[in-house]
């Protein structure tokens, strides 16, 4: 299944973002994503379910979060993994809506020989109303 490109990073870095280059407190910009029917259908097919209603399935909050991370910090050392995730949801967007997600590095630390990076994300609807926010904790690859 082909997912049409609908992402646009308003500001992103073009250089390799290794752990040393990550700046705590820095905003990595805003990611624009059109929540297309085809993207929702593709997500549903992963779980063997059918699209229902006019709102984004709540499980797709992860998709919005990961896509913004991939678009705004595109050049990372390969092999990093996701350690933990927090989401707070106020409202789910409508399918077809354009979402804007901002990404800020909240903290980074080296502990236990691992490189921890906390990324805070906030997603808003096309009219700017807040939808959901969360923290993606990554173990950065060396």
């Amino acid at each position: 299944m082909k997912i049409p490109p609908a992402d646009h990073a308003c500001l992103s870095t073009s250089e390799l973002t290794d752990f040393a280059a990550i700046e705590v407190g820095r905003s990595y910009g805003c990611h624009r994503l059109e929540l297309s029917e085809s993207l929702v259908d593709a997500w549903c097919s992963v779980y063997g379910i059918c699209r229902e209603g006019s709102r984004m399935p709540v499980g797709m909050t992860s998709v919005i979060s990961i896509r913004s991370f991939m678009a705004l910090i595109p050049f990372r050392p390969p092999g990093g993994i996701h350690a933990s995730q927090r989401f707070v949801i106020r409202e789910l967007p409508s399918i077809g809506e354009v979402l804007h997600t901002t990404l800020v590095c909240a903290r980074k630390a080296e502990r236990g020989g691992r490189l921890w990076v906390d990324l805070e994300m906030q997603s808003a609807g096309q009219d700017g109303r807040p939808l959901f926010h969360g923290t993606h904790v990554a173990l950065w690859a060396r």
Partner: protein
Amino acid sequence: MEYHSHGLEVTQEAVALYAEVTDDFNPIHLDPDFAMKTAMGGVIAHGTLSLGLVWDVLSRVPGFDGAHAALDIRFVRPVRLGNTVRAGARATESGGLEVWVENERGELVIAGSATVRPGEQQ
């Protein structure tokens, strides 16, 4: 009261499709040779692929309206190709929910907590 999701068999096809959906083509999920050389010792599924099942199980909790919810989880064990994962949720005395995902051997792969408060701002 305890709730359970359906089971999801984590196949190479599912992981490849999830990579397209998320635009996350990290080779640790897709390239066996690369993944073998990492601390994971082989290909692992995207953590949020299993996390989707937690939202599925929360949708079975009375009062869940698709929003006004909070979730806080840790990925505690990698999910491998061929695993079948299933999520669960259990009400706690404090009024929240304990949530988890386990593999076919009953091993935890995700652990955490959630709150579902219809109509309330989190």
